[in-house]
């Protein structure tokens, strides 16, 4: 090295001159901790290093010092870019909130041809009068939909089985399109259906109007039929036929599927994933059963606990990661939601995992009778006689009444996870959510007592699993990186 160049030591900061930036930590194993900062970045540190870090004794020549400074856990007093970047990333994270409601669920009928064990809202009934949404109700709901300031509007038709009231689906689609000629929003439609009653005529309507289909697939035939009883015990066959038809008409990507984990599903994670692959899906949502509906009524909502679900989840994920390594691209959505918060500045705004909670912000539900709820779960809770999360009714309340209602505001206010006890100092909080409806339903407390909460156990379990995998397996981490950016 020639004289005129200075050695690397000359560019290190003076010892003890750094400042701490906001971060939290959790123990990992006996002698390590994981640190997370405001924007969800993380790194591991030995315990004794944590002590020297907080006491401002960590030497600038220490490799951990470099990582901590580069990832914005500490800064030198002159590091102005650090604050700019942290602010920018925080802003990106929160920017989605500013757009307000995007997903509008229309429960067009409560009637259904299935009698699923874990569904309490649907009815086996011919009585259209009592359980179908009327055109008048739909009109009022649409008024509210277009009050949303969000440039994107997604209308999802739910039930019961929405195909049993397809004339109303048609009505809403056509009305919404008509209004949109003036409104010029990015308008999308989804029908959530088991596909058992799908006809060529319905599909043709979906094709012409660009409507997507979200259907249900719980696993192999016996499991699926057991979870989803209907007369003739042919739910799976109906699904298979319907899926083929729907794809033929609408195109491959216009049809997606969701899964419900019943206790019978728990030992069968691999088979369920294989079933999805067999039907040509490239993703799955390993969704735990919500503590609502039938389950709550019978006070047996713990059909299985977080521990057994986690076992199922880990088995499924191990298999899915293995598939990806063998070149089969296959995504698990629940993990993706968390990983997105770990690995990017984007908040995927998944309603269960938002902080503040997504209720009324990312989703709003219009029930068949005009009642408005903060989320699908709130509607189910109301079916159980708990109206806590009912925001109002389209026939009697104004936009203001509904979206500035105490029910919504107090939930929102109470649900910044960063203010809940335990969550406020939990290192996983930037990746976690609030789910006030869950905690209200299970603990009678919107904030929840996290040490005893199944939600918290599930989140901690998933987060620790994902962290361990990424740490032990760089290839899996690369795969996750592609998930969160797709």
């Amino acid at each position: 090295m020639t004289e005129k160049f200075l050695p690397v030591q000359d560019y290190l900061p003076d010892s003890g001159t750094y400042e701490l930036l906001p971060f939290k930590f959790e123990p990992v194993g006996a002698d390590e901790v994981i640190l997370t900062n405001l924007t969800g970045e993380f790194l591991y540190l030995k315990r004794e290093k944590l002590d020297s870090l907080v006491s401002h004794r960590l030497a600038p020549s220490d490799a951990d010092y470099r990582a901590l400074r580069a990832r914005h856990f500490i800064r030198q007093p002159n590091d102005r870019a650090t604050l700019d970047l942290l602010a920018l990333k925080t802003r990106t994270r929160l920017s989605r909130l500013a757009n307000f409601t995007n997903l509008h669920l229309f429960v067009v009928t409560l009637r259904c041809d299935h009698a699923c064990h874990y569904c309490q809202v649907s009815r086996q009934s011919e009585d259209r009068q009592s359980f179908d949404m009327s055109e008048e109700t739909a009109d009022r709901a649409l008024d509210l939909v277009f009050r949303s300031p969000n440039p994107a509007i997604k209308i999802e038709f739910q039930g019961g089985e929405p195909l049993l009231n397809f004339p109303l689906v048609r009505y809403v689609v056509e009305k919404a399109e008509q209004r949109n000629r003036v409104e010029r929003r990015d308008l999308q439609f989804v029908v959530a259906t088991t596909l058992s009653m799908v006809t060529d005529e319905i599909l043709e309507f979906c094709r012409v109007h660009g409507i997507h289909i979200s259907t249900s697939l719980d696993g192999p035939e016996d499991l699926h039929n057991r979870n989803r009883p209907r007369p003739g015990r042919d739910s799976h066959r109906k699904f298979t036929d319907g899926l083929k038809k729907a794809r033929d008409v609408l195109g491959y990507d216009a049809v997606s599927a969701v899964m419900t984990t019943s206790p019978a599903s728990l030992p069968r994670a691999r088979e369920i994933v294989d079933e999805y692959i067999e039907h040509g899906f490239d993703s799955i949502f390993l969704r735990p059963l919500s503590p609502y509906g039938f389950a709550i009524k019978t006070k047996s909502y713990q059909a299985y606990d977080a521990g057994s679900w986690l076992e199922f989840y880990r088995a499924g994920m191990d298999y899915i990661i293995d598939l990806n390594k063998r070149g089969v691209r296959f995504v698990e959505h629940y993990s993706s939601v968390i990983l997105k918060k770990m690995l990017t500045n984007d908040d995927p705004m998944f309603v269960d995992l938002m902080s503040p909670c997504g209720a009324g912000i990312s989703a709003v539900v219009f029930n068949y009778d005009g009642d408005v709820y903060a989320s699908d779960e709130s509607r189910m809770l109301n079916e159980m006689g708990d109206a806590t999360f009912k925001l109002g009714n389209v026939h009697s309340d104004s936009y203001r009444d509904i979206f500035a209602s105490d029910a919504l505001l107090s939930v929102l206010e109470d649900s910044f996870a960063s203010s809940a006890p335990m969550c406020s100092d939990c290192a996983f909080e930037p990746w976690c959510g609030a789910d006030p409806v869950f905690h209200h339903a299970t603990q009678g407390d919107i904030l929840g007592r996290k040490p005893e909460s199944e939600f918290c156990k599930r989140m901690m379990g998933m987060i620790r699993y994902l962290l361990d995998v990424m740490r032990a397996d760089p290839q899996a981490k690369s795969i996750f990186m592609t998930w969160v950016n797709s």
Partner: protein
Amino acid sequence: MLTLSGSALETGLTAPALFRLTTVPDLPAPLRAQRAFLMRGLGDVPEGYPHYLVFDRDPIPANGAAFTRLDEKFAYLSDDDIVHLSPHGHVRTLFRSASNHNSILLTEQCNNYCLMCSQPPKRKDDRWIVDEVRQLVPMMPRTTKSLGITGGEPTLFGDDFLDIIRLCKSWLPTTALHVLSNGRSFADVGFARNYAAVDHPALTVGIPVYSDDPSRHDYVVQEKGAFDETIRGILNLKRFGQRVEIRVVVHKQTFERLPELAEFIARNLVFVDHVALMGLEMMGFTRANLDALWIDPIEYRDELSAAVAVLRAYRIPVSVYNHQLCLINPDVGIAYVKSISDWKNEYVPECDGCARRDECGGFFSSGVKHGYSPSIKPFPHRHPAVD
């Protein structure tokens, strides 16, 4: 290697001048007045050109006009090239129409002092270059595809630098303009705003970031606090919607944290338009600091793979420049660009018989001359199938 600067054999010039060259004998008179005629061998000498270039032993223009005689090193000169000639016989080629890599060196001064600078900065005031460039830009063919502005640090001239960008926008609106800057000047919001206000339709600034660790970057550029200014500069540029490319030279002082740097970019600067990961060029300071800088690229191939994988996962366009194909992992191939020279890709004896020579960028001539990896290994040809 091309000789871009050298001495003429003789010249009849009395004052320094810039000339755009032509071999077309019958240009309209007003255009002849703005060109120098490039004579090749015998033939009629058209009238009306202010200056003539002849080679070697070729006969001189019979009309007695002023001429400059060049040797064969300048034989590459052709139509629409632009040269600067001095009365002392100094020749500098400033623009070659056949090249897609023309660039304007705006100054040799710099506020960094990079270990591997290929154009070692000088302190002396060279603002005169700005005046020359003001003349040069309007002489360039308006069909020029791309043009670079380099230094030193071209932004050090402040408003004069912005003037040059404006001039390019006016005369060469369809020419993609690529500025190489260390980005620090843009930490000044006002300057970044003025730069954006030029509103050039095809302008990119390439800015080096050498590490996610500020002290490591500062060391490589030999300037405390440079990292902070550079990052703030990039943020300001993106805030005003400017195109930014991040340029990373990979060497012994930067390869270790290359994957971390990629993650830093993915997390903090995901909105940049391109990331270039470049091999070391054996020029300028690099040769003085060879021990501190040189590492066989084969030794950092895994870091390179990891960095490319991260950037690609986050959908940040990434290219790997100045590398030899046999020294990278196959998964880097997707980002590999056959770059290096716009004139002639050079190879070394080890390359003989390599099956992928056509796809490989080969070497800088400086690399061929001053040392290259001992790990160069030609790709075998697949044996032709025998029926």
